[in-house]
C-alpha cells in the first residue's frame, strides 16, 4: 500500500479554520476542528456475501480529500458510513470527532451532502429548495431563507433563484445541490460525482466552487469522482479504495513521486541514433508522443544521456525526471494484486 507520511495534506499549510483560540475566530467560533476529518478502525460491512468494506482502517486529515475507486470498491458504502446511515458489522470510527455508530444525527448536522442523483422535485423555486434544505437541518424559516439567498449568490445562481428548478441546466442543478449542501455552513461537504454529465464550462464552475470552498472558505471536502483530473484539480489528498480495502492514501503531490532513474527527454532532431546509442549503454528508451521516456540502469547517472547526445550530435531541448500522474498512481494501486 502506498501510504505516505503526511502533514495533514497541506505541505505545512495550516487549514484556515483550525482556530485554537476562539476569540480570534470571529465568525468561525463553531468550527473547532478535530485533528482528523474521519477515521475508520477495522470497519467491516457486508451485504450478504459481498464485503463492501473489508477490515478497513484509515485516518484521513482535514482538507480537500479525493475518494477514488472503481465501481464496487466501497466508496458509496464509505459515504453512507460517514453519514451514519448504515450500521457496520464490525469496527468503529469517527467523523469530525463523533462516533458514527452513536451520533449519526449530530454528524449529519455538521455534514453537507450533495448526492449524485438529481434529487430535485419540480415546481419549486431554487431559493425555496435551498431554504427547505436549511430548514430540514434545523434552521428557522427566516434564517434558512436569508442564508439560501446568500449561498445562491455564492454559487452563481443569484439571478436564477426564482426560477423553477426543472428549468435549470445540468450545471445549474449541480450548483443548486451544492448550495443546499452548504446552506447550514457544514464543517464537511461530501460531493458525490459532482461533475457527471456536465459540459466543460459547467464542470469548471463546479470545480472552481469546490476548490474555493475547500481552500479559501475553510470547509472540508470529500470529493468522490471517477474523473481523476477533477480530483486532482480540487483535492490535496486522495484515498483509493478497491474491493472494500484501502489501496492507497496520501497527499497527491507525494503520491505523484518523481522517478530517479527515469526521464522524459525531447530532442531537436531525429531520435533513432540517440536511442540506439542509449541501448548500447543499457538504457531503455520508449517514445511517448513528442517525448522519449528513458530508463537508465541503476548503476548509471543521468550524465549518460548527455554523453549519448554528444556522441550522436543531437540537441536535448527538454529533460525532466519522470513524474507519476494521478492516473498512474490510481492504476498502480488498483491493479496491484
Amino acid at each position, binding site marked *: 500500500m502506498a501510504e505516505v507520511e503526511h502533514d495533514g495534506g497541506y505541505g505545512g499549510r495550516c487549514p484556515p479554520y483550525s482556530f485554537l483560540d476562539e476569540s480570534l475566530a470571529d465568525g468561525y467560533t463553531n468550527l473547532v476542528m478535530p485533528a482528523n476529518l474521519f477515521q475508520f478502525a477495522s470497519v467491516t460491512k457486508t451485504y450478504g456475501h459481498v464485503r463492501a468494506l473489508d477490515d478497513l482502517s484509515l485516518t484521513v486529515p482535514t482538507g480537500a480529500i479525493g475518494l477514488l475507486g472503481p465501481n464496487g470498491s466501497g466508496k458509496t458504502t464509505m459515504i453512507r458510513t460517514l453519514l451514519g*446511515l448504515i450500521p457496520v458489522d464490525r469496527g468503529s470510527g469517527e467523523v469530525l470527532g463523533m462516533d458514527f455508530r452513536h451520533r449519526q444525527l449530530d454528524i449529519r*448536522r455538521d455534514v453537507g451532502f450533495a448526492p449524485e442523483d438529481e434529487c430535485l422535485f419540480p415546481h419549486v423555486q431554487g431559493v425555496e429548495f435551498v431554504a427547505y434544505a436549511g430548514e430540514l437541518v434545523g434552521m428557522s424559516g427566516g434564517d434558512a431563507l436569508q442564508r439560501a439567498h446568500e449561498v445562491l449568490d455564492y454559487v*452563481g445562481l443569484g439571478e436564477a433563484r426564482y426560477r423553477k428548478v426543472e428549468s435549470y441546466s445540468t450545471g445549474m442543478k449541480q450548483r443548486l445541490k451544492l448550495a443546499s449542501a452548504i446552506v447550514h455552513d457544514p464543517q464537511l461537504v461530501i460531493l458525490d460525482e459532482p461533475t457527471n454529465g456536465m459540459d466543460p464550462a459547467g464542470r469548471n464552475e463546479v470545480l472552481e*466552487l469546490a476548490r474555493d470552498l475547500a481552500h479559501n472558505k475553510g470547509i472540508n471536502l470529500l470529493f468522490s469522482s471517477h474523473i481523476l483530473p477533477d480530483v486532482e484539480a480540487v483535492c490535496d489528498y486522495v484515498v483509493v479504495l478497491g474491493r472494500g480495502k484501502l489501496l492507497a492514501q496520501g497527499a497527491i503531490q507525494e503520491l505523484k513521486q518523481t522517478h530517479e532513474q527515469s526521464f522524459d527527454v525531447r530532442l531537436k532532431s531525429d531520435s533513432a541514433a540517440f536511442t540506439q546509442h542509449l541501448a548500447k549503454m543499457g538504457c531503455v528508451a520508449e517514445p511517448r508522443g513528442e517525448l522519449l521516456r528513458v530508463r537508465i540502469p541503476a548503476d548509471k547517472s543521468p550524465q549518460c544521456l548527455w554523453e549519448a547526445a554528444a556522441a550522436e550530435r543531437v540537441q536535448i531541448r527538454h529533460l525532466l525526471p519522470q513524474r507519476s500522474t494521478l492516473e498512474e498512481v490510481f492504476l498502480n494501486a488498483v491493479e496491484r494484486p
Partner: protein
Amino acid sequence: MPIFDQGYQHWSGHLAGHAWRWLAITRRGVRTALQSWPVRLALVLSWIPALVLTFVLCMWGLVERQSETIATLRPFLMGMLGRPVVAGPLEYRADIWTLCFHYFLAWELWFSMILVLVVGPNLISQDLRYNALPLYFSRPLRRIDYFLGKLGVIVGIIGLALIVPSTIAYIAGLLFSLDITILRDTYRVLLAAVVYGLVIAFSAGLLILALSSISRNSRYISLMWLGIWMITGTVSYILVWVAQEQRLREGHFGRHGWFSEQFLTTEIDFEKTDWRSLISYTGNLQRIEERLLGTNSAWRKLFDIAPPNTRGSLLHRMLYTQHPWYWSAGVLLVLAALSACTLHFTVKSLDRLK
C-alpha cells in the same frame, strides 16, 4: 453575475433540536398543497357545509330563545322537528346539535376523501420519482420524522377542512345561543368533531402514505385510493342491501317493508352482528363518528316523540351503524398497522441513497 462575486460567509446561527424537525416537512407540504388550485377549490367547497352548519346552529339559537325573528318559520320547524322539540327546545338542544354535526361530518368525510385524493398520492411517490429521499435522509432526520412530516400534511389539510370549520361553527352557535349552559350541553359535540377529524386524518393519512410509497406513479395511487374509498363502500352497500332484500322477502313485508317500523326494528337488531358494513372504509369511519357523537341516542330520542307515520324514516337513518364500534375501530387499527408496515418496508433510506 460571475461566481464568487458575493463570496461566502460563515453562518453561526442556532439550529433547532430534533424534536420538531418533522414540522419543516409538514409546513412545506401544506404550503405546496395550498398552491394547487384543485386543493384550494376542494377546501373552499368543504367550507360550504360549515356555512350551512353555522347557519343552522344560529337558527337553532333563535329557536331556543323563541325569537320573533323566526316566528314565521315556526309551522315549518314544527313539521320538520316535531312540536315537542320546538315547544321545549332546551331539552333537545344536545340532540339537535349532535344531529347537525352528524350531517356536517358526513359531508366533511366526503370532502376529506377528496382532499386526500388530491394531496396524498404525491407525498412520498414524488420523492421516489425524483430520487429526493437523499435530500431528507442525508440530513439530521430519522425516518419517523419524515413520516410524521408527511402525515402532518394530511392532518393539516383535514384540519383546515373539518376541525377548523367545526370549531368556528360551534363558536358561532354558542354566540347565537346567549346561554352559558349550552357549553355544558354541547362541549361533547365539539370534542367529538375534533377527535373524529383526527381519526380521519391519521387513518387516511397513514393509508395514503403507505399507498404513496409503493409506486412512483401518483396516478396509480389515486386509483388505489378511489378503490379503497368507493369500491369498498359500494361492495359493502350491495352486500348489505342483498341481505336486507332477502330478509324483506322472507318476512313477506312487500315493498312497504322499508317503511315498516317492525321490519326496520328487526333490521337494526340484525345489523348488530352483521359484518358486511365492515368492508366499507368510510363506513367504518362513520361508525366511529356515530360512537363519538352518540348519533343513535339522538335519533332514539327524536324517535320517541315522533308521530307514528314518521318513525320509519327515523329508524331508516339508524341503519348501517349498528355493529359494535370496536369492530370498526379494529378494522381501522389493522389498516393503520398494515400501512405502518408497508412504510417500514418500502421507504428504506439506504436503498435510495446512491
